[in-house]
């Protein structure tokens, strides 16, 4: 027990390892509550700052609704300016397979978005980041996103959008939880925002996002690729959508080609949403890209909306790091319970059980595969 406590304390000091990150929009709300992310968010990607409609949605869908505007609407901002922020921290149990109790801050981001002219908006996200060892003084604070947006619709809800600046390429379903396999291994890992330009189209029936991006030339980045990403979604019916995704990237070390599909199906009666994303990755590695491997990444999630501002996600993630070799596939069973207590405060219990080779003995006499998992309680405060 004493040893466990000691390890716990040190693990807290050595925090940030599971890491935090910017909350993207909750894709659970698209189709189940509205047709597009831009109905509630200022950015065409969804996530970050909420529009007025988004504020009303949060107020109506939290258990103890109150004004959802910046600082409870105590500060009257000029109409051209929108401010906000997200703070997140988590504490809980982690097994990899060594066991820990860990606590760590996840996110401290401030958002500002200024409407510059009828069709233009400039958005900045700035905040804390885990510092780079050896360069701490210059790397505690950064701007994760800063981009200029042109939107055909002055309200920025539908129609054409063009963005240039630093942002996350739009790809796939865009789960908020970055450990989701389709994010971690699917081309949009944590902190992989970079410089690029995007042309996007969104309406109730269709949306498409084409992004060209570069390796960040300013900082030591997470993503080392130049590339292009395409995501397109077709809402066949108000409660059914299908999508396709493709990404090609090239770094000094490898080339990757990703292709996949997404689907969403909402059942109005039981208030239940199903989401699926599957992706095949072709990776060319090594001298003259001689070595090649194919990967499979997938996520199936069922979301049940509950009373009192709660919803439960149950998901199965799958990642096979090399389809040719047995024993390298991993599955994660996720169960996340969200509770929007007020318009500004969310509690989230996030749990995972992770198995290799479906829990069987690994090939080549390697014995039973290691298992992993976590159960973390996360507190999220919106400014």
């Amino acid at each position, binding site marked *: 027990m004493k040893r466990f406590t000691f*390890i716990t304390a040190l*693990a807290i000091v*050595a925090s*940030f*390892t*599971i*890491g935090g990150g910017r909350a993207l929009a909750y894709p659970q709300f698209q189709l189940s509550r509205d047709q597009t992310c831009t109905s509630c968010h200022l950015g065409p990607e969804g996530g970050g700052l909420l529009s007025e409609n988004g504020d009303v949605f949060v107020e109506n869908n939290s258990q103890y609704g109150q004004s959802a505007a910046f600082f409870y609407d105590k500060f009257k901002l000029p109409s051209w300016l929108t401010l906000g922020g997200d703070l997140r921290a988590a504490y809980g149990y*982690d097994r*990899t*397979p*060594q066991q*820990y109790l860990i606590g760590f801050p996840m996110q401290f981001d401030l958002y500002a978005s200024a409407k510059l002219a009828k069709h233009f908006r400039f958005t900045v996200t700035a905040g804390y980041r*885990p510092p*780079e*060892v*050896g360069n701490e003084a210059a790397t505690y604070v950064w701007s994760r996103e800063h981009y200029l947006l042109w939107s055909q619709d002055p309200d920025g809800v539908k129609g054409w959008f063009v963005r240039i600046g630093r942002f996350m390429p739009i790809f796939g379903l865009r789960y908020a939880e970055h*450990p989701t396999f389709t994010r*971690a291994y699917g081309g949009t890992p*944590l*902190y*992989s925002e970079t410089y690029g330009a995007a042309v996007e189209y969104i309406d109730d029936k269709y949306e498409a996002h084409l992004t060209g991006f570069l390796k960040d030339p300013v900082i*030591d980045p997470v993503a*080392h690729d130049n590339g292009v990403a395409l995501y397109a979604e077709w809402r066949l019916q108000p409660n059914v959508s299908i999508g396709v995704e493709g990404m090609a990237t090239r770094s*000094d*070390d490898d080339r990757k080609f990703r292709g996949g599909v997404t689907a969403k199906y909402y*059942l109005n*009666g*039981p208030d*239940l949403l*199903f989401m699926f994303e599957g992706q095949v990755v072709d*990776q060319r*590695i*090594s*001298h003259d890209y*001689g*070595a090649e*491997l194919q990967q*499979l990444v*997938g996520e*199936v999630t069922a979301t*049940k909306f509950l009373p009192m501002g709660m919803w439960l996600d149950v998901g*199965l993630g*799958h990642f*096979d790091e*090399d*389809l040719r*070799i*047995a024993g390298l*596939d991993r*599955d994660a069973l996720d169960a996340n319970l969200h509770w929007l207590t007020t318009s500004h405060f969310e509690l989230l219990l996030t749990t995972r059980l992770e198995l*290799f*080779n479906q829990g069987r003995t*690994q090939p*080549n006499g*390697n*014995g039973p*595969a*290691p*298992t*992993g998992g976590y159960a973390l309680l996360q507190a999220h405060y919106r400014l």
Partner: protein
Amino acid sequence: MNAHAIARSCIVRAMARFVWTALVASAIGACGTNVDDRSLDAQFVTAAILAPACGAAECHSTFVQKKTDVFDTVAGMRESVIKNGLVLIDSLQFDPLDPDSAQLIVWLTKNDPLGKGIGRMPIDAPMPFEDISLLKEWIRGVPSIRQGTTCATNTDCTTPGDTCHIPLGSTSGQCVIYENPARGAQCDPRSKGLTHGQACIYDKLYGCGPDWNATALIQQCPNGCTQGACL
């Protein structure tokens, strides 16, 4: 049937579809051969194993460089492995003879390896044993050991091209050979006229490290060497 019962039946049917989809997806992903013939060069090991498992943003990425280790690029991996002694290739400790003792492997296989509460890596998700085995093979790759061939001098190694590696402080060793060009013929100390136990790395970044692609980066250290410096 009332509305509640209909809704419940709908949930059950929907959940059944979900489970079937999940099972089919898992089954598809569980295929593959047991023969692990993946490439053993530094580029492959970095891009396929170390970068996704160890080079996550908040860990040993170029972005954070936790403990000054970087595993999300080949250049970063080379520097980390050599500079931080994660794989030692010198006359005090020669990890290719015993990959289990290489710090890189110790961190991946032992709980709290330093007894300081810094746990087994990766800390955010386990690594499959198959990948750890491949990393050991990669470390072992140069030289390949002739099993059961102990030696005191090079003349004891009867197979042409073999070298007798004698750890410092020992009077006997094992015959080794650099037989696979992909595993390091370019880094063969014999090409420099050196005895393996006396060769060391003098270029910390692109030295004769586990990427095995360096040339002309080996110098002779008559008294042995450690961590890229002659004693």
